[in-house]
C-alpha cells in the first residue's frame, strides 16, 4: 500500500539564453527560497533533499556539491543527487517518502547549457563504442526519429510546425518561458527538423516540495497527489528500436495508472516537435486533453530541469484549480530512450 504523497509547491526561474552573471548556486537559490517560503518550511524541516543535474553541461566538476550551498546543508542533511533530469530526483524522493523515513522532500534541478555546446555535450551520453566516436548531435538523432515518423505517415512537416506554433502560443501566458508567442519556423537545422522544431538553448532551474499524508494538506491548499509514478527504459541502440513509438512511455503510464481514467491535462517533455507526436500516440491522448499549456520544452528547455518542470507545471495547475487529474511526463537519453510518467490529482472541489 503506497503512502499518499503530493507535490505541494513548485518554483522555477525565468529561463534565459545566457546567465553569465550567475553561478549555478546563484541561479538556483531564488527558486529554493520560493518553494520553502510557499510552504513555510525551513531547510532543517525538510526530511530529504534530492537534486538532478549534469556537470558536462557547464563543464564544472562537482557543481552539484556547490549547488548544495544554496540549501544550507548544516547541520548535515539527508541528501542525494542523480546525474540526469530532476524528474528522476523526484522519483527517488517519492521512494524515500514511501519508506516512511521522511515526510517532506525538497527536489531541485538546474542546467546551464550556455557555457558549452549542448548539441555536442549530449553526444557524450551515447554508447562509447559505436555512437560517440561519430559525434551524432542531439538534433541529428531527433531528426532521424522525425524522418522515420514522416515515412510512417504519422506526421508531416506542416503538422510539426503546428506543434511548434501551438507550444509557443501557449507559452505566451508563461512568464518563465524563453520563447513566447510567434517564432519563425526557420531553416533546416538537420532536415527534416527546422530551428522551430527544436527547443531553445538556455539556462534555468526549478524546485518542488513533496509532502506525505496529512503534512501535504497543512502545507498546501490543494495538494497535487501523486496517484502513480513509474519510469521505464528501452535499448540504447537506435537501430534496435522502433523510433516511431515509445513503448517505455506507454508501460510507465500503465504502471502509473494513467489509463484508468482520462486526464484533463498532460505536460509532455518533448524537446523536439516530432517527439510530441510519438508521445501523444503512446499515451493515447485525445483532442480533449490540454497538452503543454506551459508551452513545454519547445518554449523553455533548461536541460536536466525540463522534465522536473513538467511535473511542477502539472502540479501547479492542480494547485490553482485549473486541473483535477493531470499526466506529467519526463524523458532522458536519445530519441525518448527513457521515460517517466506520473499521474497527479487534486481533491474534489
Amino acid at each position, binding site marked *: 500500500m503506497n503512502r499518499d504523497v503530493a507535490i505541494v509547491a513548485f518554483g522555477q526561474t525565468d529561463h534565459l539564453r545566457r546567465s*553569465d*552573471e*550567475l*553561478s*549555478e*548556486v*546563484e541561479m538556483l*537559490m531564488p527558486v*529554493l*527560497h520560493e518553494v520553502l517560503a510557499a510552504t513555510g518550511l525551513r*531547510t532543517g524541516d525538510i526530511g530529504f533533499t534530492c537534486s538532478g543535474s549534469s556537470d*558536462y553541461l*557547464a*563543464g*564544472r566538476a562537482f557543481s552539484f556539491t*556547490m549547488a*548544495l*550551498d*544554496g*540549501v*544550507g*546543508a*548544516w547541520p548535515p542533511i539527508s541528501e542525494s543527487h542523480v546525474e540526469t533530469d530532476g524528474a528522476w530526483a523526484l522519483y527517488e524522493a517519492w521512494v524515500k517518502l514511501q519508506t516512511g523515513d521522511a515526510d517532506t522532500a525538497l527536489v531541485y534541478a538546474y542546467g546551464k547549457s550556455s*557555457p*558549452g*555546446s549542448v*548539441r*555536442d*555535450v549530449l*553526444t*557524450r551520453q551515447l554508447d*562509447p*563504442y*559505436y*555512437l*560517440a*566516436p*561519430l*559525434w*551524432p*548531435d542531439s538534433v*541529428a*538523432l531527433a*531528426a*532521424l526519429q*522525425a*524522418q*522515420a515518423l514522416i*515515412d510512417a505517415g504519422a506526421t508531416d512537416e506542416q503538422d510539426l510546425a503546428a506543434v511548434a506554433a501551438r507550444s509557443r502560443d501557449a507559452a505566451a501566458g508563461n512568464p518563465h518561458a524563453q520563447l513566447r508567442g510567434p517564432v519563425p519556423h526557420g531553416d*533546416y537545422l*538537420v*532536415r*527534416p*527538423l527546422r530551428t522551430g522544431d527544436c527547443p531553445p538553448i538556455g539556462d534555468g532551474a526549478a524546485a518542488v516540495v513533496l509532502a506525505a499524508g496529512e503534512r501535504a494538506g497543512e502545507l498546501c491548499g490543494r495538494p497535487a497527489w501523486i496517484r502513480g509514478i513509474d519510469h521505464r527504459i528501452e*535499448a540504447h*541502440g*537506435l*537501430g*534496435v528500436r522502433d*523510433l516511431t513509438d515509445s513503448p517505455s512511455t506507454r508501460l510507465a503510464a500503465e504502471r502509473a495508472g494513467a489509463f484508468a481514467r482520462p486526464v484533463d491535462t498532460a505536460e509532455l517533455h518533448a524537446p523536439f516537435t516530432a517527439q510530441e507526436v510519438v508521445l501523444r500516440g503512446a499515451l493515447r491522448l485525445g483532442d480533449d486533453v490540454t497538452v503543454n499549456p506551459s508551452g513545454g520544452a519547445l518554449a523553455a528547455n533548461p536541460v536536466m530541469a525540463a522534465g522536473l518542470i513538467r511535473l511542477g507545471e502539472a502540479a501547479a495547475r492542480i494547485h490553482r484549480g485549473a486541473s483535477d487529474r493531470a499526466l506529467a511526463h519526463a524523458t532522458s537519453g536519445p530519441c525518448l530512450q527513457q521515460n517517466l510518467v506520473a499521474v497527479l490529482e487534486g481533491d474534489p472541489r
Partner: protein
Amino acid sequence: MLRAPLVVEFPFTRSLGPVQSAFLTGLRERTVLGVRTTDGKVLVPPVEYDPATADELRDLVEVAPTGTVTTWAWNPGPRRGQPLTKPFAWVLVRLDGADTALLHALDVPGPDAVRTGTRVRIRWAATRTGAITDIACFERDQSSSGVTGRHARPHSGRFAAQEGPVTGIVAQARLDYTYSPGRAQSQYIRALAGHRTVGERCPDCRKVYVPPRGACPTCGVATTEQVEVGPRGTVTTFCIVNIKARNAGNAAIDVPYVYAHIALDSADLALHARIAGIPYDQVRMGLRVEPVWSDDARFPDHYRPTGEPDADYDTYKELL
C-alpha cells in the same frame, strides 16, 4: 562579466568484450560481423547481451557491406568530430543479412539523393585501426539489390591478420566551454587583480566567506555584503609536500615545501596557499603570514611570515 575559455578533454581507454572485439577487428579487416539472438534475429552492430531478453550472445555471423537506409536526416552543417566535413546525410542502415540498423554518415551530394529505402554500401577508411570510424561513411550503391541480398553466414570471429584481435579502444572526447564564474566569484577575482582579497558576509550567521561563492553553505541564503579581509592571516594547519607536481606552473617550486590553510584576518573560512620565506620545517600552526604578489599574477604567489608573534590557538581553533 568575466569570461574565459575552458577546454575539457578526456581520453577514455576502454576494453572490449568478445563480441565488440570481433566486430571492431572485423571492421579493420573490412568485414562486418553481427550477432545472432536466441530467436534468430541478427543484430548489427552486435551487442553482448540481447536487448530484449538479456541472454548472453556469442553466435557471430558475417553480413554484407551493402544495405538499405531505414531513416535519414540531412546535415547541412557538419560539426567537429563527425564522419564527413562536407554536408552529408545521417543514416540508419540495415545491412543485408541484418535485422537491425547501424548509425553512420552517407556521402551524397544533397538531400534529394537519399530516401528511406536507398541502397548503400560501405566506403572503408584508408587507414583502419579497429573502430567504428573504420567505416569512413556509406555511399550509394546502384549495383546491388536488397531483394536478392545475402543472408548472414556463420563466422568464427577470428581473423588471420598479424596484428591480432582488437582488444580496446581509446575514446577521445573534447568539449569547449566559455566559463563565467558568476557574480560573487567575479567580484572576488576582480579584487584580486588589485591585490585585495574580498569575501562576503552571511546576513544570518554573520560569517565572512572567502573566496565567496554567493551563498552561505550553512544558512542557504545569498551573501551580498562585501568585506575586505586580510591581507595578513594565520596558518591554521599545513602539510609538507615532498613530491614535485608535474604541471609546468610548479616547475620553479622546489620540494619540500609547505602548503597551508590560512585564516585571513576578518575571514571565517580558511583558504589555502603555499608558504615560503621560512624553512619548511619551521612552519607551525599559529604562524602569522602575509601575501607576496608577483607583478602580473592575479593571485598571491605565496604567503611569507610577517614576523609577528604567533596567534593564540583560541583565536583560530574554530577555523581548523
